[in-house]
């Protein structure tokens, strides 16, 4: 079981959360202009890295807030949690360019490339929180 550090409530068992899949998938800016291929990318294609993955979680039985998390999909170590709408903290490595319009939904992302705000980002340095699945 993962021990997930909710940005609002602190470390809680994985069973209190629901998974939301890949983070930073903006709704297409001009849906009517997309080709079938582009639509299929938006609807069915998500990144599936073996390594660090930016993903969404919601703390369903706690604060009920969505947030983003960087997690290693091999070791399952949690590397960072950060607010929805803020860019991926390690944006240098694998971040996908975000070109959508910002929306207010839980899966919102922001337009542009604001620098990661350290005040809302907690980077869990090198080691996984105690209790992360091994």
């Amino acid at each position, binding site marked *: 079981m993962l021990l997930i550090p909710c940005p609002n409530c602190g470390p809680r068992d994985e*069973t209190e959360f629901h998974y939301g899949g890949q983070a930073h998938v903006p709704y297409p800016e001009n849906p009517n202009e997309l080709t079938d291929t582009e639509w299929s990318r938006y609807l069915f294609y998500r990144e*599936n890295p*073996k390594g660090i993955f930016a*993903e969404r979680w919601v703390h369903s039985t706690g604060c009920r807030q969505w947030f983003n998390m960087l*997690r290693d*999909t091999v070791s399952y170590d949690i590397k960072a949690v950060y607010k929805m709408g803020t860019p991926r903290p390690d944006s240098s490595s694998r971040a996908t360019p975000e070109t959508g319009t910002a929306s207010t939904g839980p899966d919102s992302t922001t337009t542009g490339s604001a620098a990661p705000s350290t005040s809302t980002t907690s980077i869990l340095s090198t080691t996984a929180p105690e209790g992360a*699945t091994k």
Partner: protein
Amino acid sequence: MSTQHLPEHPDFLWRNPEPKSSYDAVVVGGGGHGLATAYFLAKNHGMTNIAVLEKGWLAGGNMARNTTIIRSNYLWDESAAIYEHALKLWEILPEELEYDFLFSQRGVMNLAHTLGDVRESIRRVGANKLNGVDAEWLDPQQVKELCPILNIRDNIRYPVMGATYQPRAGIAKHDHVAWAFARKCDEMGVDIIQNCEVTGFLKDGDRVVGVKTNRGTINTEKVGLCAAGHSSVLAEMAGFQLPIQSHPLQALVSELHEPVHPTVVMSNHVHVYVSQAHKGELVMGAGVDSYNGYGQRGSFHVIEQQMAAAVELFPIFARAHVLRTWGGIVDTTMDASPIVGTTPVENMFVNCGWGTGGFKGTPAAGMTFAHTIATGAPHALNKPFSLERFETGALIDEHGAAAVAH
């Protein structure tokens, strides 16, 4: 000191050749699908100058981690066609491969626990019959007659309201299936190369012309990907994307028990599926972990939930002990159907997306994928399972339709 000599070591079932510098075709992944593909390439298409490259050991991926359920009672015509073809191949393969891998047609039951389940199940039985797939609807009494250890009382949280039943379905010994294919491949001259990890591809423009491995570069005219949970990783190396998410999927066995469970029982709603292996272990599978993972292990609460469901349905399991749990990495698609066909890279073909339920499909995957690789075009059975369906919208949505995903 004992003076008795150990018996001779039994014959090995396949050679362990060094990779050659070139092959007519290379199959990546030595699980069931890769081995079956190589078998049909050699047998049906006369392609014997080929190799199966496996980064670990044969069947060390999902092939020998699954719960071995074989059935063909899928809802949609396209699925019924390919899975029923697979089932017919299972029925003849022990003889064809000259290997008794204990294919046991003990029937599979898919339980219904809600009125919605009941309606869907009866609809599926009708669809199956129209497609020539054996299927019956059982009421709770009939369920009890077939599987006496099932609790059919109506005072449990999810009472058994009936079940679909496919008598020709069953289980087989997964590791022996892999070895049976491997031995025949080897006999026909196919090189099975273990401890050989593909690390990249050589391309000439949009065409693949070779693979890079930890044991050197191999030139080849055609590449078939059969990497299950690692399909996205290989596709990325080749420069294209797949609509796949990799998830941990767990299973477990109990210690050995006398025979108590005559058939296979699956429940979509409470998410557990149970059979009893030939040796006597109770074999149970769980649902996928929600998160993406390549770790071949999942979270314990998934196992706990599955055990709770199992004990409610089978009260006599309450005193059984879990002996061992493990996980595999399954390659899921959004419509819960596989992808078998061509890719944006010329001469590279992909067989993936079988997710939580591809063991049963092994022979048909091999047959149709070999056809696709050899001829460059899909077989009628895998044509609907193309990568393009995600663009055309011709999805084959077996989510929920297919009586649980295994």
